[in-house]
């Protein structure tokens, strides 16, 4: 009996233990606990080392340094800034500069990219080949090289200020940048901005009404032209009604430099041009594949319904192509924003360049890297949320 009990006992325990080893759930938990332990241990060691190293280097931690005096100058700034401003203000200048070059770059890259992408599908052999050469050229060289090419290769060897190139509208181009007339708005100029906003709001309402009417009666309405008229016409009317309160501060060629007007520095120009041209080549490929992915039957069916070619593009092809285009386009926009950090190569004061200067002055490596992470991640996430919203709006509505 005892032997029996012993015999029957041993297999059950070993069976239990082995079943625990072969139980996927138990193994899963074991692996996860193991991974988590390793990660926690790693993070703990890294933190300990960092604290040790910082203490040894006598670097105080914390974000208190943000209030300190920056003490360095920034070439191009959208808001008032001097070397007496705080680090926080300098960082804000950097964020605004990054956003400025990113937004302008995204707009330009989209325009060039759409034109080139459509040109690649052209019936015209020469146009299609030219577009292909453009894409294959810019896609296969590093963006940093394009930036340096503009900065050191082209703009730096432009003539000096006294021999500037004279462009139309009293614009000058020389090795110190592009000098453009600076608009100065007189009294009541805010009314123009208000008129512009009213135009946009009115267009939204008109579009809504037009859609409802078309749903009800089938009567189309020229929303685009009405909208353009409202958005552009209202401000222009206000402008004229106010007696054109706008003067220009023209740049004037002095003996050694140009005075007056506003300047787009060579750093900004080279970064902006390089990012736009580089990203446009990727956008062109996205646009091309998006349009090609719309089945031919869609165009043919639209033709059979008697739609005109303009309406086919606008109502049938483009909405379907956009659905395919938007997700990769989002990542290109994000790439452009992130690539704007290459500004450091040409000395444009973006977040990264200013953060680097701050690091050199204060040595607060951990805090500045944390700031980088927070700023770039929030820019990325905001763009992604907006584009996802747009994508969801454009997505196929199924039953």
């Amino acid at each position: 009996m005892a032997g029996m009990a012993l015999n029957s006992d041993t297999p059950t325990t070993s069976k239990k233990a082995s079943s625990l080893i072969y139980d996927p759930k138990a193994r899963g938990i074991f692996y996860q606990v193991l991974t988590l332990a390793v990660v926690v241990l790693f993070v703990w060691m890294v933190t300990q080392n960092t604290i040790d190293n910082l203490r040894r280097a006598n670097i105080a931690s914390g974000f208190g340094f943000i209030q300190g005096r920056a003490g360095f100058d920034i070439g191009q700034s959208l808001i008032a800034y001097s070397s007496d401003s705080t680090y926080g203000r300098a960082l804000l200048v950097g964020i605004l500069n990054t956003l400025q070059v990113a937004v302008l770059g995204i707009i330009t890259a989209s325009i060039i990219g759409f034109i080139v992408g459509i040109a690649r599908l052209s019936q015209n052999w020469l146009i299609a080949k030219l577009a292909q050469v453009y894409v294959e050229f810019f896609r296969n060289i590093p963006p940093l090289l394009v930036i340096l090419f503009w900065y050191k290769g082209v703009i730096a060897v432009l003539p000096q200020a006294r021999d500037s190139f004279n462009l139309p509208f009293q614009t000058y181009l020389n090795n110190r940048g592009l000098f453009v007339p600076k608009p100065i708005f007189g009294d009541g100029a805010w009314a123009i901005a208000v008129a512009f906003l009213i135009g946009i709001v009115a267009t939204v309402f008109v579009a809504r009404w037009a859609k409802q009417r078309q749903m009800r009666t089938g009567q189309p309405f020229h929303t685009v032209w009405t909208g353009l008229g409202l958005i552009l016409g209202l401000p222009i009317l206000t402008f004229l009604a106010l007696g054109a309160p706008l003067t220009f501060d023209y740049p004037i060629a002095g003996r050694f430099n140009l005075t007056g007007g506003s300047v787009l520095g060579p750093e900004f120009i080279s970064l902006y041009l390089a990012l736009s041209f580089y990203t446009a080549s990727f956008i062109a490929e996205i646009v091309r594949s998006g349009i090609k992915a719309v089945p031919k039957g869609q165009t043919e069916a639209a033709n059979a319904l008697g739609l005109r070619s303009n309406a086919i593009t606008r109502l049938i092809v483009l909405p379907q192509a956009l659905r395919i285009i938007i997700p990769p386009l989002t990542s290109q926009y994000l790439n452009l924003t992130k690539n704007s950090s290459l500004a450091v190569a040409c000395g444009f004061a973006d977040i990264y360049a200013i953060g680097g200067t701050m690091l050199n002055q204060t040595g607060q490596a951990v805090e500045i890297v944390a700031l980088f992470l927070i700023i770039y991640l929030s820019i990325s996430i905001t763009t992604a949320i907006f584009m996802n919203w747009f994508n969801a709006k454009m997505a196929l509505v199924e039953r």
Partner: protein
Amino acid sequence: MAINSSTFIRQDMLAPQPAPLGVSGASHWFRTKLFATPKDTVLTILALALLAYLVPGMINWLFIDAVWTGSDRTACATVIQGGVLPDGQSGACWAFVDAKFQQFMFGRYPLEERWRPILVAVLFVILLVPMLIPKVPHKAWNALALFIILPFISFFLLIGGFGLPHVETQLWGGLMVTLILSFFGITVSLPLGILLALGRRSQMPVIKTLCVIFIEIIRGIPLVTVLFMASVMLPLFLPNGWTFDKLLRALIGVSIFSAAYMAEVIRGGLQAIPKGQFEGADSLGLSYWQKMRLIILPQAIKLVIPSIVNTFIGLFKDTSLVSIIGMFDLLGIVTLNQSDANWSTPVTPITGYVFAGFIFWLFCFGMSRYSAFMERHLDTGHRH
């Protein structure tokens, strides 16, 4: 009767139609491809005008007015700039590239030791070419030699050891560093990316969360920041007294960065595999790793080869960013050499960048062509 009157019977012969226009030959091609509609004609003329404006100038600058030989800046500068060229002439200064070519390739690697990188390059080509040609057998051994054995041999060959004099990585530079960074990045990022992608698709919440956090943070910040972290933060993370080689820091930064992108590409491939494949593998009693290695990954990776190669191309271009953290890759060394007073002329920077751009372009374009070839080669017609 009324019905009969409405019938129509043709009485006269139709006039013969003119013979159809030629549907082949040069004139037909011109008519349909260049001058099909008035709009096309205008576009063609505009494009021709653009070409006529740009191409002769470029050919002039690159070849005809270019300076091919010379020993210092006077060869490439005009009289006003203190050189020998007539005023107003502007052409590429290929003499500069010629004089600095060795540096562009090897950086400041000691002259008498340069046979070592050359030997590594020869070994690399010998192993790479059969790897790229699908027909050559023994791919597994080839891969083992290329991805495991060669890096070891190259490491000791390049840095020294076993009787070879030590060469600091500070002295490495030029195309050599660009290629080392990209090869290492590619070799590390593909397996790491596969692991991250599997982790992200895993059923285990902890592993999944860790992978998602890692991938999304890395993808949300620019490579410059990652490299900056690798060069500034890594020394902080290590115990006192430990140091990391600068090149190694850059290697880690580049590999981590591209692994995150690779993971998303592989995940796309994994998502495209039908559920039946997973269930089929499970019903055969395969373990998780067997299932992934034998059934899922081969199909998933095949699906996303173009995107993988695009990531490789991106990585190759991104290696140029290490010049920002003070390393001299091809682009860095070209920029560095432009400040050489011996060669400073207005055309030197452009010439250097045109040369560097050409090298980068050759490699990237080659990779993209090869990926197109592989895509056709691997297309077994299972795609719907």
